């Protein structure tokens, strides 16, 4: 494994994640516009209803599909960091494995602490 190959695989990983997220959001978006395209918009007031992974069930069908796509989008950079860890392990680069682990730990802490 060289840095160049790492970059290429990472690029592919990001492309796949983004394409997947975009198709799901697009699908949900078309459904959403078809069902509520003519209703008036109202984002003037914030309704602080906590929404976690479990909230997918409480959203309407099209909104739940969009939310799923957004979760895939948010997971994409995290997956990139996880892959970096594997890549640096294959390069036998201990220093960068440690660096990547720290980043991953902070990410997991930060994303995790929002749910618990």
């Amino acid at each position, binding site marked *: 494994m060289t*840095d160049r190959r790492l970059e290429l695989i990472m*690029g592919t990983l990001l492309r796949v994640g983004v394409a997947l997220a975009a198709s799901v959001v697009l699908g949900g978006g078309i459904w959403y516009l078809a069902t509520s395209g003519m209703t*008036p918009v109202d984002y003037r007031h914030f309704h602080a209803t906590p929404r976690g992974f479990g909230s997918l069930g409480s959203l309407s069908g099209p909104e739940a599909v969009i939310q799923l796509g957004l979760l895939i989008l948010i997971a994409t*950079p995290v997956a990139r960091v996880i892959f970096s860890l594997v890549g640096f392990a294959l390069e036998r680069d201990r220093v960068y494995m440690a660096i990547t682990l720290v980043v991953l730990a902070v990410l997991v802490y930060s994303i995790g602490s929002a749910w618990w």
Partner: protein
Amino acid sequence: MNVLVFSGIVFVVSALAGFLGSLTGLGGGVVVTPVLTLALGVDMHYAMGASLVSVIATSSGAAAAYLREGYSNIRVGMFLEVATTIGAVAGAFLMAKVPVGALAVTFGAVLLYSAWLALNEPKRSEAREADPLAARLKLNSSYPGPDGAVTYPVARVKTGFGLMFGAGMLSGLLGIGSGAMKVIAMDQVMLIPFKVSTTTSNFMIGVTAAASAGIYLGKGYITPGLAMPVMLGVLAGSLAGARHLMGAKTRALRRIFAAVIAVLAMEMIYNGVSGGLK
């Protein structure tokens, strides 16, 4: 206004945001947030959620192309992400204890000055000392120039790392602005070539934003109906932007960058004074 018209407008604005965001390494929030709040009357919390989605979409969308072409420096990115992610968590903790309005005004002023600095190439003396730490961390690399690969050393690694911690903290505290500090630190302090600085910032901001995404989702800032046109528009724009970066002149990119962060600076000052950030 009905949902269809609203989504169409947001899509077009987001496409522009993604285009500028991917060229400058700033993400799309600079354009998305003020248009949503000032022109379309969207609540600040929803706008922040949309801005976060736009940053992740710009970052991941353009990074694929930049990695393939060999612009982004993944080691510089990974190394500095340690500082930005820890800074972001620290910033989120400090949010309740710091006068955010005053901070926004101060940071806005710093950004205005940086916009001026960014217009010109920083002085790179021919015989400048390469940082030994950069060699040990394998940060020195090369990027595709007009006439083949151009190698570059990385300077002042520790100072750059410290500034990145500040960048992360500000992004945790203020929600926007981390990309600007990243590009400026890499370009002006670590003396990394401009295109490498912006594309590496672009590569990093997705991870910094993902670190805040949990909190935003948990509080319900990210609302599907609004995030949908933002994400799709930003993606379309960022893919177009990534195609333009390759052939773009560095001078032109510096001008665009300076203009965008000057706007960002004024946004921050406005928000700080009007109390929009809470």
